[in-house]
């Protein structure tokens, strides 16, 4: 363990994809992941989340900076580190010609586990992923969501200390998502440290103890979901929607309501500590919105404030 007591520690971590054209995918980021926590990378497409995850997974070599995982240098002790990692890549890379059971078996063999050990764990993993009745099915016959669940189950075959999940719930239906959250929560309670990426604000809020918000290969903010919301946005938001032809004019009129106005293509957001008061003020100014909604601020607003863009376009 290094001096910070972190399970994963990055300083100036950089990834440059050699061109042409040369591309800086991760531009010098610092973060620490503590033992037993769930740490999330939140950011839009192309922010560098997957690249960062692949460097932590010792799959992609870093171009610069320092990266220590489980007390080892990521470049020097890859085999040692990887033996203790579980990894769920963004795109499923299952063996589609093999059955569900065989996929877990061969993956366990990559870790040098004995066949009987793997067989014994397989029952539990299939149970975990709710794939017990698909045990002998070929992967090519599974639905996308089932494959995702198998990828996650497979990543646990070596009983990892650190689990890397790159967009784990993309492609899952709401029920499967909530089930997975619950399972991940249980893993965390068993002492597994989780690092995940997501586009989903609710996922980040539900699962992550701490977040790093990424944009353009950099970390633009980090902290717990609550801290981020308190630090970067007001308590409430008033959302106003106008007919498109009156949108700009209304934005002009609304200026000065609340602490800050954010003009989106389809609506106005007024950040304020008191949404109802802001709504009254809007009425006094003669604004006549199609719809008006007062809500609590969330991570989406943090992201908008930090980057000037919505996360999901």
């Amino acid at each position: 363990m290094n001096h910070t007591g972190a399970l994963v520690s990055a300083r100036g971590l950089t990834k440059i994809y050699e061109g042409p054209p040369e591309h800086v995918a991760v531009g010098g980021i610092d973060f620490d992941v503590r033992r037993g926590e769930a740490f999330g990378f939140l950011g839009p497409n192309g922010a560098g989340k997957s690249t960062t995850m692949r460097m932590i997974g010792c799959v992609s070599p870093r171009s610069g900076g320092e990266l220590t995982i489980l007390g080892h240098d990521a470049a020097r002790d890859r085999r040692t580190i990887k033996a203790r990692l579980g990894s769920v890549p963004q795109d499923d890379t299952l063996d589609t010609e093999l059955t569900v059971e065989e996929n877990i078996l061969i993956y366990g063999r990559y870790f040098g586990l004995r066949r009987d050990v793997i067989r014994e764990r397989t029952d539990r993993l299939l149970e975990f992923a709710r794939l017990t009745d698909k045990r002998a099915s070929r992967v090519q016959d599974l639905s996308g969501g089932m494959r995702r669940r198998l990828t996650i189950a497979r990543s646990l075959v070596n009983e990892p200390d650190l689990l890397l999940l790159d967009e784990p719930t993309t492609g899952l239906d709401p029920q499967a998502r909530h089930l997975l959250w619950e399972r991940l929560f249980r893993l965390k309670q068993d002492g597994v440290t989780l690092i995940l990426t997501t586009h989903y604000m609710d996922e980040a809020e539900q699962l992550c103890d701490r977040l790093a918000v990424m944009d353009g290969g950099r970390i633009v903010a980090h902290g717990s979901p609550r801290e981020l919301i308190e630090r970067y946005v007001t308590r409430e938001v008033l959302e106003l929607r106008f007919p498109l032809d009156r949108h700009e004019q209304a934005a002009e009129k609304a200026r000065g309501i609340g602490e800050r106005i954010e003009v989106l293509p389809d609506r106005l957001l007024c950040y304020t500590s008191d949404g109802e008061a802001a709504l009254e003020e809007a009425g006094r100014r003669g604004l006549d919105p199609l719809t008006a909604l007062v809500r609590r601020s969330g991570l989406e607003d943090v992201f908008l404030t930090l980057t000037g863009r919505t996360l999901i376009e």
Partner: protein
Amino acid sequence: MSAAVLVERNLMIYKHTWYVLLAEIFEPILYLLSIGVGIGVLVGSVTGVTGGSPVRYAAFVAPALLATAAMNGAMNETTFLMFGKLKTDRTYESMLATPLSERDVALGEIAWAVLRGTLVSLAFLAVITALGLVESPWAILVVPGAALIAFAFATAGVVVVTFLRDWQDMQYIQLVMLPMFLFATTFYPLSVYPRPVQLVVQWLPLYQSIELLRNPALGVLSPRILVAAVYLAAMGALCLTVAVRRLGRTLAA
């Protein structure tokens, strides 16, 4: 040896798709029957290969087809199939997330390709033995010979695959392999060519592979067997070094 688990994976997969290997034995059998036996009726026998007695044409062609089977069996695995795993299935990505290294992947896939090439040629050897086309007990040397051929071409295949950009590039491999198959003394002896052409043909890896198998299959224990073995071992060793380095770099992006 953690690379051995790659062989394990392939065995697991071929348990489902074993008929692919069967199809691979089918091709040399077709050549053997159409050209070796069919055209053999017109040709009769070939003289001047064994030094003494003439050889039935089918028995002359059979070991060359065996060498070709070993070559194709190994090379299909490391060109066509490996390219698919690299670009389409991204099979290796999931392996590299485990303690396996790029080197393990390269060595493991080559080991499997050698095994596959050898297995295919063994099956074909059984066929030609059953047809009575094996002339000498020295034909047993064909087994390690086929493994050596598979090794040389498996490693060469990996080197080639690291240069391919897309599926169209696969055509270039065919562009080299087909003429080599037709002209590397598969269907007639080297003496057919004028001397300058002979010098070129003798450098072809398939020519050396055929020499390696045809001589013992016909019961000729010539030093040419040794020359061919050294040639193929050197080619394999060189390609192995380059293959491990280049594939390692391709995988660690």
